[in-house]
């Protein structure tokens, strides 16, 4: 590389150069290389597009000032994961969905060379049937405001210069002209709250660390993202790794730390790879290391990979894990800001929190405060998944209602089914219902109804979901992940899981529900860390909002959604049954009888619900009734 960026002047020059290079790329074809699209084969498409466009420089003349070059780039996640592989063509602003290698030729001939749109590849709204070839007009994108995700899907995350062209490392340059206190003050004034779940004011946290008068301090970026159903941190680390590094540097400068750790979960190999490349490129340019941008500030970044433990996302456990120990939480205080890594003052922030920092420094606290609500300024990314039409990653201003998020951005419930519930905030969050759809999404309104934004996982569930089974599922998760250090969490979650399992198995009694509530409140009050303290949330919220379903399971021995195996009642649909006798032959208890070529009959009393007949029937005539 050779180029060293050792002053603000050199940074500006590098930015100008990178900008010009990108401007020369009159056509940019961006192929999503986020985890989802890679899984659907986007890398092959990128290779094919590169091959197909490599000789057509001169031919393309449809853009007024003539085409100087075509850039084919792989980018981070565009967010619209279920529609992948995605290909975006600039400056047309076209987004093609579900692209395959076979489409490449047509894309080059029609769109690249002639500037015409291929309707077949454009997004088609599943309900209205309308076709949206232009990305920013697609309802999924139209209602979003992107700050944390602003570069995701737009730049090549493995190309430092593209980041520079979009004001990369300008924020740390600006921060370095200010005093540490001034930087902390801007973050305080912005009202930024931690996006890792708790929503603690970031500026205040930095102030605590700055106030500690100690030689050695650390900053940590929490990229553990253990919440099942959430992948925003992954997408930011994969799609815009330099942004995370820059945010961490600013945190380091503001609090007086010379070393930053990024803790990434082991399940995210692509994020690790991209971050490692970003760190080594930043070092090569001199943007990390000694005397950054010609100042006294020196900073290095180290990646630590997790090893698969949900509790390691908790800050004190995470620090134990970095130190090479079992990742067990410890009581607070002392808080990490006082005594963290190896006993030194440590600031720990979530990936998304840090990704917001550079923009706040560059554009100011007031700009940030204009977005979102009074007490929850800014935007929040959500991973919207489950039974919703547009699954993917979104970023919206705080204060939107659940309805707006699920219906306007998410496109509503899939397959014309009915909305039943939304699980928000992962295993520590809660299940909300229809009546909460007009609730605004911000830190405070959600905690009032027993849920929380958490990391921002939004799992939408339709009428075919059994809420009790979902509660059992979460309990199984937290029970598995409890580190076992404190009794209430270790034993309490186990007992709760046993009860829930019993109910799902059709063996529950009315008094089980009471017992469940008792244990839940004990675990909530008495656990050491957030894992135990929040583990009862899904149970408590479902008991509150879906009590009748629990009752149906224990009293009527029925699963209203028809999901729980043990409570299923099978019957034979006489219209579909052709009387082939396959079912009666496999039934181990002789519960099915009938005459050949006439509809068979299933005796529910004898039936042991093994499901053998369901599998045996070639006509799908055995149904859950």
């Amino acid at each position, binding site marked *: 590389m050779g180029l060293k960026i050792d002053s603000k002047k050199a940074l500006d020059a590098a930015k100008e150069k990178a900008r010009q290079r990108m401007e020369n790329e009159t056509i940019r074809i961006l192929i999503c290389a986020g*985890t989802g699209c890679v899984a*659907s084969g986007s890398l092959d498409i990128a290779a094919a597009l590169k091959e197909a466009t490599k000789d057509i420089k001169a031919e393309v003349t449809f853009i007024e000032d003539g085409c100087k070059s075509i850039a084919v780039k792989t980018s981070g996640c565009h967010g619209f994961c*279920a529609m992948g592989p995605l290909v975006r063509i600039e400056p047309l602003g076209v987004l093609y969905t579900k692209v395959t290698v076979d489409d490449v030729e047509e894309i080059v001939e029609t769109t690249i060379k002639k500037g015409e749109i291929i309707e077949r590849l454009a997004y088609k709204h599943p309900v209205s049937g309308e076709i949206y070839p232009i990305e920013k007009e697609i309802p999924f994108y139209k209602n979003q405001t992107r700050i944390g995700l602003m570069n995701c899907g737009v730049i090549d995350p493995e190309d430092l210069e593209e980041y520079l062209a979009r004001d990369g490392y300008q924020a740390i340059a600006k921060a370095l002209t200010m005093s540490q206190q001034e930087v902390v003050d801007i973050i305080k004034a912005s009202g930024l709250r931690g996006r890792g779940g708790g929503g603690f004011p970031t500026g205040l946290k930095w102030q605590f660390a700055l106030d500690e008068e100690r030689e050695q301090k650390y900053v940590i970026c929490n990229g553990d993202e253990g919440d099942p*159903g959430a992948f925003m941190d992954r997408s930011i680390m994969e799609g815009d790794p330099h942004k995370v590094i820059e945010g961490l540097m600013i945190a380091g400068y503001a609090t007086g730390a010379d070393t930053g750790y990024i803790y990434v979960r082991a399940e995210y190999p692509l994020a690790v790879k991209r971050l490692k490349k970003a760190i080594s490129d930043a070092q090569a340019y001199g943007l990390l290391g000694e005397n950054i941008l010609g100042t006294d500030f020196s900073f290095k970044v180290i990646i630590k990979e997790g090893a*698969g433990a949900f509790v390691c996302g908790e800050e004190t456990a995470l620090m134990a894990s970095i130190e*090479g120990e*079992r990742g067990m939480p410890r009581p607070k205080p002392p808080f990490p800001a006082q005594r963290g890594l190896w006993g030194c003052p440590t600031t720990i922030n979530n990936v998304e929190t840090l990704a917001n920092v550079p923009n706040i420094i560059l554009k100011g606290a007031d700009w940030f405060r204009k977005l979102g609500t009074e007490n929850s300024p800014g935007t929040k990314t959500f991973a919207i998944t489950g039974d919703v039409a547009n699954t*993917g990653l979104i970023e919206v201003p705080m204060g939107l209602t659940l309805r707006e998020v699920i219906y306007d951005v998410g496109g509503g419930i899939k397959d014309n089914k009915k909305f039943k519930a939304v699980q928000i905030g992962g295993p520590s969050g809660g299940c909300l219902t229809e009546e909460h759809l007009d609730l605004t999404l911000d830190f405070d309104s959600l905690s009032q109804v027993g849920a929380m934004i958490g990391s921002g*996982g939004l799992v939408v*569930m339709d009428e075919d979901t059994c809420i009790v089974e979902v509660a059992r599922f979460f309990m199984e998760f937290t029970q598995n992940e409890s580190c076992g250090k404190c009794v209430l969490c270790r034993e309490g979650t186990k007992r709760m899981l046993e009860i829930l399992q019993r109910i799902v198995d059709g063996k529950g009694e009315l008094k089980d529900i009471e017992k469940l509530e008792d244990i839940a409140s004990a675990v909530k009050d008495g656990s050491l860390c957030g894992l135990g303290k929040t583990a009862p949330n899904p149970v408590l919220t479902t008991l509150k909002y879906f009590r009748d379903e629990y009752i149906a399971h224990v009293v009527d021995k029925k699963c209203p959604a028809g999901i729980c195996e043990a409570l299923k009642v099978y019957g034979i649909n006489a219209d579909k049954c052709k009387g082939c006798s396959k079912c009666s032959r496999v039934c181990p208890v002789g519960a099915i009888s009938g005459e050949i070529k006439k509809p068979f009959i299933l005796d529910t009393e004898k039936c042991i619900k093994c499901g053998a007949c369901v599998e045996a029937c070639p006509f799908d005539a055995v149904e859950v009734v």
Partner: protein
Amino acid sequence: MALTMSALQRKFEKVNEIIEKYGKKKSSLIAILQEIQEEYRYLPEEILTYVATAMDLSPATVFGVATFYAQFSLEPKGKYIIRVCDGTACHVRGSMPVYNAIRKKVGLKGDRKTTDDLNFTVETVSCLGACGLAPVVTINDKVYGQMTPEAIELILDQLMKEEDGQ
């Protein structure tokens, strides 16, 4: 049979290399175990004991770490490691039927996770972070999205055919 220290060192040459690469600081322990596991596909007990000696840590510390994290396995794993995501998004979109279909296909019964011929290990994981494609399955780190019991069966058929062909 007691091996002399130098014989031991020779036997664990690869392990030594890994330890050397990271240094003997305790904070490197997890990374060292990760790399050893990549090499051997699991963490054999004797290696763990050796790591403890070589890094000047108590065996309890090393075993404690190795058993705490889900990523580490003290038992040999199959050649193909099939992970079925059972995160929330995948669970509500039907990951369990996919998991059951895989177990049936490779012939796993009861609590077993690995087939006798050490060809397949089938396990669940919580959230792979590709929830938009739920339900998600990975086979040796290749990601397959929007799986159904039928689709995964076809993939496994293909895999088994290749396996037989070799």
